[in-house]
């Protein structure tokens, strides 16, 4: 009787040792991501911080690294985002409201739903090809901010739809029933009760989607955003460049100094993205209520 117990004890201590070891293995794997993130930030900061000054922010791009600046790319990004945001918001939130509030459960609804999750998996460069064919050539918009904004809006549409759907789903049915009980119609209920309650979630999703759009490079290269723009755009039909493309242009140059300029550009880009992410988190925390 005592023998199996002895054996069990021995194997048990072995298994327990394995268990403790595995904890360390899994913990260190998880920290790889965090370590890399820190390395990346430090690498960019070391390379770029020396080149980041007021001149860099207010100069146009230049052939000489010392004079190169990010002004036209910065304004191009702002222009593009201000055009992309309303287009993507209306289409994305509209789709989500339809799917969550109006759509019956039939094959067509399922088809839209499957289609949206598929669109989310389409490589961004393919959206670039679509934008080039449809907006730049087909609709004759040329290599304009508007063509870029349309392309970007389609690219981030799936993200916005899914996030808005989640936000709408989290609004409990009781709220809707209360509104109906007071005689509200369907649209009145949605507009006055459901949407205000879901708005923080919807906005959070939109901001995250837009921050994705700010970082995207490939589709805009496809539709032909320029890499050397020495002016700030003044209308949606102007040609333009954006920060990731400007950075790409600097990275691809052979002169070593442009690598530092690129790093400085990356610092500006990351600062912008972190601000937007912080805003999204702030919104989520401030307006998050439990029903």
């Amino acid at each position, binding site marked *: 009787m005592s023998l199996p117990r002895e054996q069990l004890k021995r194997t048990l201590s072995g298994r327990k040792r394995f268990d403790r070891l595995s904890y360390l293995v*899994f913990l260190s794997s998880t920290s790889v*991501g965090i370590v*890399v*993130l820190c390395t990346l930030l430090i690498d960019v900061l070391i390379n770029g911080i020396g080149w980041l000054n007021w001149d860099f922010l207010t100069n146009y791009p230049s052939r000489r690294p010392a004079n190169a600046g990010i002004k036209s790319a910065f304004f191009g990004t702002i222009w593009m985002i201000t055009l992309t945001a309303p287009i993507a918001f209306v289409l994305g939130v509209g789709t989500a409201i*339809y799917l969550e509030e109006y759509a019956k459960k039939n094959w067509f609804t399922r088809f839209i739903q499957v289609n*949206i999750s598929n669109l989310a998996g389409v490589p961004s460069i393919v959206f670039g090809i679509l934008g080039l064919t449809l907006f730049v*050539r087909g609709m004759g918009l040329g290599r304009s901010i508007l063509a870029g904004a349309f392309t970007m809006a389609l690219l981030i549409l799936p993200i916005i739809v899914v996030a808005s759907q989640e936000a709408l789903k989290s609004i409990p049915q009781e709220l809707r029933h209360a509104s109906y009980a007071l005689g509200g119609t369907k649209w009145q209920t949605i507009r006055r009760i459901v949407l205000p309650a879901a708005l923080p979630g919807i906005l959070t999703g939109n901001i995250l989607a837009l921050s994705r759009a700010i970082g995207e490079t490939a589709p805009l290269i496809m539709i032909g955003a320029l890499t050397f723009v020495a002016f700030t755009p003044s209308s949606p039909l102007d040609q333009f460049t954006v920060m990731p493309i400007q950075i790409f242009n600097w*990275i691809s140059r052979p002169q070593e100094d442009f690598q530092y300029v690129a790093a400085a550009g990356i610092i500006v880009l990351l600062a912008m993205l972190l601000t937007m992410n912080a805003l999204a988190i702030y919104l989520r925390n401030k307006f998050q209520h439990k029903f």
Partner: protein
Amino acid sequence: MVSVRSELKAMSHSPNKKVISQSVREQIKANRSNSFKIGRVTEWVVPKLLLVCASLSILVTFGIIYTLLKETVTFFGQVSIIEFVTGTQWTPLFQPQRFGVLPLVAGSVLVALIASIVAIPIGLASAIFLSEYAPDRVRRVIKPILEVLAGVPTIVYGFFALSFVTPLLRVFIPDLGLFNALSAGIVVGIMIIPMVASLSEDAMTAVPRSIREGAYALGATRLEVALKVVVPAAFSGIIASFVLAISRAIGETMIVTIAAGAMPNFTFNPVEPVQTLTAYIVQVSLGDTPFGSIEYYTIYAVGMTLFVLTFVMNMIASWLSRRFKEDY
């Protein structure tokens, strides 16, 4: 009613005459008839408008397929489809022009392979840690950090590959070129770690507690519960996350454009420069390829190849995760 109204009329000197002059029911009626028409039109129009929004996503898909298909057909009018699928040389921008897409596919697959060697073990281990080991407090800190990692623009990763990873690799492989599949693949792998981790974690969190507790009751350690119970139970969801991440790696553009080089190389040697499907499309659109030339149509043929490849993988992934969901 009439007598009430006449009474009220008598009180018409009262300052708030309007409020008193109607009963609540009448007020509702009056309001209704005023806004009834507009209201009814709105109730009818709004769903239709929203349906139009929702249908747009389908139009986008059809738009993508239509544009790719149309121009690809034009391309195959001039290049034999057999040469495209089986050829091992890709030189559309030089003479003599060769249109075998295999070098680009090999480049994409090689980069995706290196990326999955990096991302799958680390991502899965992170998922196991987050779902089985980490206390809630730790998870709440680590998850947002991983989300930030996923939100870093790929252009930044490209810079990181070139300025940090390649020099680091050169310490171990001295004759490594500036552009190579290895550092591009490693960095793409880092990019998809958060995706593997969070999707696998979702799948593992969905495994019911009772199954875990059954295993603990039989005397299993935490490691045994994780590897022998939870991972097998969530297996199809975990595999789906791998497939989705690899599909993302194949579609990734800027990292490989910057760090992998621009050499359509039919090779699986990771230290050599390669060109991927996506990087080729960028290369063509950066140059001044004349509209309507055969070089111009290559981007549609390559884009179609990329679309089909990633589409099939996404379908497999969604099929796998659906199968997993039906189990519980």
